[in-house]
């Protein structure tokens, strides 16, 4: 039985070791520290109850990122439906600055991140901040490597656009969309 205990101890410490980057990923995804902590908690609970689907010897961190990402996606869709009922209060709560006192200097970046599509945001964070390869990121997001690459590229351009333009307040548009500017004027 002690072998089994050792194995579980290994799993537990691997999970603990992944917590800091899971939190960073979650905060970047949802822009809200409390909600991010809840996401991480849910992820650990799910992972623990599905330990038999983890293949020993593979990347524990990537496995946990996948669970967190999928959970976030499900929750995000659910919340979006709620928002449509509740008149858009969610978007405001997401960017509410008062609980982010320790990260105030990144406020602008966080807000810009939230303007990206969920696809672009997760791809950019996984590759540009978490340090996953395109291949690993593709696995986590369950899509092709080429798809991840183009999402990361588009996310980078889009962020530059948002942040670059927003430094000139007079030119800052009310809406996050810049129709036609980058697409050569063609719709759909």
């Amino acid at each position, binding site marked *: 039985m002690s072998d089994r205990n050792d194995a579980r101890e290994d799993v537990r410490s691997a999970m603990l070791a992944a917590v800091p980057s899971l939190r960073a990923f979650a905060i970047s995804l949802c822009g809200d520290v409390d909600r991010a902590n809840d996401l991480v908690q849910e992820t650990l609970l799910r992972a623990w109850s599905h330990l038999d689907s983890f293949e020993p010897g593979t990347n524990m961190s990537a496995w946990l990122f996948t669970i967190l990402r999928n959970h976030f996606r499900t929750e995000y869709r659910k919340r979006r439906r709620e928002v449509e009922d509740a008149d858009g209060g969610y978007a405001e709560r997401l960017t509410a600055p008062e609980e982010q006192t320790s990260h105030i200097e990144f406020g602008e970046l966080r807000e810009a991140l939230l303007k990206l599509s969920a696809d672009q945001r997760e791809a950019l*964070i996984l590759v540009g901040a978490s340090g996953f390869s395109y291949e690993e990121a593709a696995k986590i997001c369950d899509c092709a490597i080429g798809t991840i690459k183009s999402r990361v590229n588009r996310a980078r351009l889009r962020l530059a656009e948002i942040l670059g333009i927003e430094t000139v307040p007079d030119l800052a548009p009310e809406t996050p969309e810049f129709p036609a500017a980058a697409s050569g004027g063609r719709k759909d």
Partner: protein
Amino acid sequence: MKADKTKQKKGRLGAEIQHKIGQQLRAMYTDVVNEGVPDRFAELLQRLDKQDQK
């Protein structure tokens, strides 16, 4: 063709900003990573582990 050129120009113009964004993104991320493991998560895993041992 004209559209392609516009796009290219935009890409070049953004190169410096993009470099800065990349750095900021990593800095923001590392900032959270450096906070380490909040107690609640260590306790959670301990609790789960104990539960299983029963």
